[in-house]
């Protein structure tokens, strides 16, 4: 089941939550909607589910327009952020709920329902909690039961709102891996919302980065990280060091370096900004090909990595972070206060709006 979102707009009391969102989610994919809070990702998910109506635009499932279809008939499985398990029902009754509310003619027999529920509980590896109440489960178990309940109605689309949000770090890690494996097994088109870039990269096959109600970039985890389309995406997906420069003669000039401009940039003149991730920095002792100079202010050993903080000349508080694996650092160790030059191994240039 593919999902096509066309020109969707949504306002909440004067606030433009979604602005002309266009997005195609191919059948069977596991897609992450990634962005900071307030970027509109949850609104988009709820619109796909039919829990909210867009002000304009359409949602199509497999080419069929479902924009006006009630959530009841839309055939989506929705996993809510605080799980929304029915606390007065046992786990079994929770999972069976979607089947038992069907009109009598479509309702499976009692035995069929029991079989289906037990299959699902086996799938989420929680067969032994069937008779317990939600309040007797751990957070991770509730999460998996919420998922089993959503899957019980055999949804064409599975939607998850911050599925790992309320769990502690260890459980979260396990569940991420588990969700990816589960998706490989059942292959239902799935969309989940997250604000955690690591989670999006680790679980999804495709990441949709959103900001301020717009889609900034869609791509595989590798694409959005390696080739961010906008400054926002670059900054949101990991820490970056910023270097200011100028655009001149169709090139960006940053320090001693001349870098090609992005395709869509104004090539005439103006300001540019270059992004350099901590692990993309080389430290040199000669100024050729360097974009900045500075002196070493901090050397922190963080497990397998060493982080070096360099204060740039002429810029107070202008710390540049450099990360390298321990072995590489040990080959050419540095001293505090040592004068060094910063060379980029991979520089991404964005025309900066300031002009």
């Amino acid at each position: 089941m593919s999902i096509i979102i066309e020109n969707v707009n949504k306002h909440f009391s004067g606030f433009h939550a979604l602005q002309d969102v266009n997005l195609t989610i191919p059948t069977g994919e596991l897609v992450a909607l990634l962005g900071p809070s307030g970027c509109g990702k949850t609104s988009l998910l709820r619109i796909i589910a039919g829990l909210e109506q867009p002000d304009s635009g359409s949602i199509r499932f497999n080419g069929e327009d479902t924009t006006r279809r009630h959530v009841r008939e839309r055939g989506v499985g929705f996993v809510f952020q605080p799980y929304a398990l029915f606390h007065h029902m046992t786990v079994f009754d929770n999972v069976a709920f979607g089947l038992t509310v069907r009109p009598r003619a479509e309702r499976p027999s009692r035995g069929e329902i029991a079989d289906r529920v037990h299959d699902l509980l086996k799938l989420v590896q929680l067969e032994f909690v069937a008779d317990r109440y939600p309040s007797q489960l751990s957070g991770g178990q509730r999460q998996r039961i919420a998922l089993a309940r959503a899957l019980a109605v055999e949804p064409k689309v599975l939607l998850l709102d911050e599925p790992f949000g309320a769990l502690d770090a260890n459980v979260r890690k396990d569940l991420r891996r588990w969700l990816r494996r589960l998706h490989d097994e059942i292959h239902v088109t799935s969309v989940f919302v997250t604000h955690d870039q690591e989670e999006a990269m680790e679980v999804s096959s495709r990441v949709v980065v959103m900001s301020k109600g717009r889609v900034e970039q869609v791509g595989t985890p590798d694409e959005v990280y390696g080739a961010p389309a906008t400054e926002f995406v670059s900054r949101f997906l990991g820490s970056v060091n910023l270097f200011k420069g100028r655009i001149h003669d169709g090139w960006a000039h940053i320090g001693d370096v001349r870098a090609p401009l992005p395709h869509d940039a104004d090539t005439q003149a103006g300001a540019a900004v270059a992004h350099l991730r901590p692990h993309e920095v080389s430290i040199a002792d000669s100024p050729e090909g360097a974009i900045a100079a500075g002196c070493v202010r901090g050397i922190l050993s963080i497990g397998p990595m060493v982080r070096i903080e360099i204060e740039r000349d002429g810029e107070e508080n202008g710390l540049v972070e450099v990360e390298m694996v321990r072995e590489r650092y040990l080959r050419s160790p540095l001293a505090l206060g040592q004068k060094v030059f910063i060379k980029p191994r991979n520089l991404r240039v964005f025309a900066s709006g300031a002009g």
Partner: protein
Amino acid sequence: MNTTTSPTLNEPAWFRRLLIGAGLAFLGLFLALPLAAVLTEALRQGVGAYLVALQEPVALAAIKLTLIAAGIAVPLNLIFGVTAAWAIAKFEFRGKSLLITLIDLPFSVSPVIAGLIYVLIFGAQGWFGQYLFENDIKVIFAVPGIVLATVFVTFPFVARELIPVMEEQGTAEEEAALTLGASGWQTFWRVTLPNIKWGLLYGVILCNARAMGEFGAVSVVSGHIRGETNTLPLHVEILYNEYNFVAAFACASLLALLALVTLAAKSFVEWRGQAQRALAPIALPAVQPST
């Protein structure tokens, strides 16, 4: 007409209007109509007759007695409420649930019985009847009896309002004050009291409304001596039974006004206290510590 939940969960508009209409009709019939009846009947023969009725010496005496009874009962129960809430909310001890239930007891006792018990103790045939008679002390059919009955029926109001407020606040702030060198009294006045002031005020408002409006319990111990042992609600009854309807409703309108002021004050306190915490609704069992 908007709703609080997402649009997919709405009932159809006509059904919503039907429910709202039915709810309002019920409240109109049982709340608004009686209120309107009191005010209208009081002014049936014009403002002049209304004011004359209120200036009767007997009416003024009744108002005075009502103020005296409330003026004694409310502070007593205020002190009790704070003390009991302190013991219950700040300490753990066995029998706490039982104690809370006992404090709530007067709400489950018919006001008539509340009056009766003091007659049994202080009345002519009561436990202390002989002693009181010999020493010429009047409790029943006199002001002390009225005060006692009022104290009984308003007993739980402040305590049950404060216990959940103080329980929610826990003991961390008091402990912090103590580590900073504050004495017990300083801790109470400067840390605890500011934290509970809205809950306290809420309890006092409700306690006062009940104290001034109590009828059944006071009726039993009053003896209905005009100008001496009649509170305002009892005075209303006497006037009504004498078919002096305008005067009866005039006095009743004062009490209705008191009720409206109470509701307004209560709403104000709820609004101000909202930042601190939601206040427990009146006359519902106090939240008991979960076991």
